[in-house]
């Protein structure tokens, strides 16, 4: 028993270390976003919201934010919609090479993002496309598709097959039953998938960095501000992004539980 409790304590410490490694820097960032000092050093001077005001009045940040919003919303809408049809065919049909296709759809999850970025950049510019936010949207759609397909096919495989069969037998066509029977049953998963893919696309940096040049997204703007010298406003924007992602992430997980 004594050995057990020793091991238990060790595991607790390990767990605490991992959690603090992940969240401590974020906590520091949040704390300093309210610190009036220009330098990121202790002690904490006094409470201020100056950095937040700076962020919302800085046209570059606002532009980055609106670019990011436009791209991420289009990416998540497109990916969720396409993933719905992919998931439907993966779950409901039985064709040769289905298991291969299943794996194929999920490969972008394991391919390093930098490879997706570079290869798309070379391929698309060889086809005469200039780097732009549109290309970013394409690249990020590839990146979030596996997640969307995974989530939706997971839900769809829980829907009893004979719901659709009953609809067919009553005279419904396949297309109609897909929209009238399957779609409503996936309602919450669709919203959750939309939110989840949105947060992934919104935070994404590498693909975006390779595929755009003049119009930049928020993560790129943050990175360039860091390169040119530290600006405490970054703490503020980081806090906003973190809290938004966290909230959306929690909402999407709750929606998945609701089905």
């Amino acid at each position: 028993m004594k050995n057990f409790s020793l091991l238990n304590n060790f595991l607790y410490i390990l767990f605490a270390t991992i959690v603090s490694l992940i969240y401590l820097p974020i906590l520091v960032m949040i704390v300093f976003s309210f610190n009036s000092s220009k330098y990121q050093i202790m002690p904490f001077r006094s409470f201020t919201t100056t950095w937040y005001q700076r962020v919302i009045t800085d046209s570059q940040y606002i532009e980055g934010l609106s670019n990011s919003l436009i791209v991420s919303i289009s990416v998540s809408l497109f990916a969720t919609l396409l993933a719905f049809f992919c998931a439907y065919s993966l779950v409901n049909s039985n064709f040769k090479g289905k298991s291969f296709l299943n794996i194929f759809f999920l490969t972008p999850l394991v391919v390093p993002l930098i490879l997706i970025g570079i290869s798309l950049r070379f391929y698309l510019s060889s086809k005469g496309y200039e780097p732009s936010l549109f290309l970013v949207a394409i690249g990020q759609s590839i990146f979030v598709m596996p997640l969307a397909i995974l989530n939706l096919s997971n839900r769809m495989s829980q829907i009893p097959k004979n719901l659709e069969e009953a609809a067919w037998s009553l005279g419904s066509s396949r297309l109609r039953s897909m929209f009238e029977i399957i779609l409503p049953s996936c309602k919450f998963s669709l919203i959750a998938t939309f939110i989840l893919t949105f947060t992934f696309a919104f935070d994404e940096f590498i693909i975006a960095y390779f595929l755009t040049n003049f119009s930049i997204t928020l993560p790129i703007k943050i990175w360039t501000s860091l390169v040119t010298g530290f600006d405490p406003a970054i703490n503020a924007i980081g806090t906003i992004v973190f809290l938004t992602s966290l909230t959306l992430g929690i909402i999407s997980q709750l929606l998945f539980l609701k089905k």
Partner: protein
Amino acid sequence: MISKSIKLENINKNFDKVEVINSFNLEINAGEFITLLGPSGCGKTTLLRMIAGLEHVSSGNIFIGDDNVTSVSPNKRDTSIMFQDYALFPHMNIQQNIGYGLKLKKINKLEIDRKTKDWLKKIDLEEYGLRMPHEISGGQRQRVALARSLIVEPSVLLLDEPLGALDANLRKNMQSELKKVHSDIGITFVYVTHDQEEALSMSTKIVLMNKGKIEQMSRPVDLYNSPKSSFAAKFMGFTNIFSIKNRDKLDISNFFNTLENNDIENQKICFRSNNVNFKTDNSGEFKVVSKQYFGGMYQIKVSNNKNILINLMSDETISNGIKTGDSLNLSIESKDIIFLEDK
């Protein structure tokens, strides 16, 4: 409603090289209540799904009425199917569930509303139209599923163990309700079940299936009283199935001593356990092995020195005094012995 006949012509079905249905031929008359009966895995559900169009045939033809529907998709067939778990649409209320088939037929809203209300009244759920499927009981769901299938006025209703999920009491009620519906509307019913009692009490004809083939097709009375094979006999509850050497020289007074355990070459016979008469007799050849109470009845197992194990069923007033180890003398009337056609 118009009732149509069904004809299955030389149907074969393979799932990944495993043969499920094997050169299957069956003609079902319009208006019949036919039951496909058999153990699980005998292919009865596959057959029903093929009639509905939910499963392709590997080869063969399916006719509904005069039309060859072999390659017609399920939504274009004149059939309606009911599942064991009812498959009510969870996001629609009861009224929308029942009216769904009419909505697909582009019938105007007022008409759909009127017909749906009619059906709600018929199934005694007038007040429940706005409830969701998970807010009503199993028996009620079953009636909703039935109404949803029948409102589109199919010529054939296909039922896949629709009573399987109900408890025993409700099942009995539903059996008679379904039978009444059948005689009221007169369309063809094809019913799948593994429950012989259900099949016997509801159908006009039973198709007993075994390994993708028809084992026997008869009226319920005939299947119950004269099974043709030992498979059919077992399925109809015969627990005493034996072989005898010589059919022509059957000696009824010495019948039980001529029985042998099943042997491929000999004539097979069977008899019901309640048709055997017995009395205690010290010189009797059969000894009581076990005795079990079945509510009003005792099942008594007896055996002789040739290891022939016979099941007896008798009223408790007769068998009360009998104990394990007692010797019994058995007798049977020749009309109660059924000759089977197995080889």
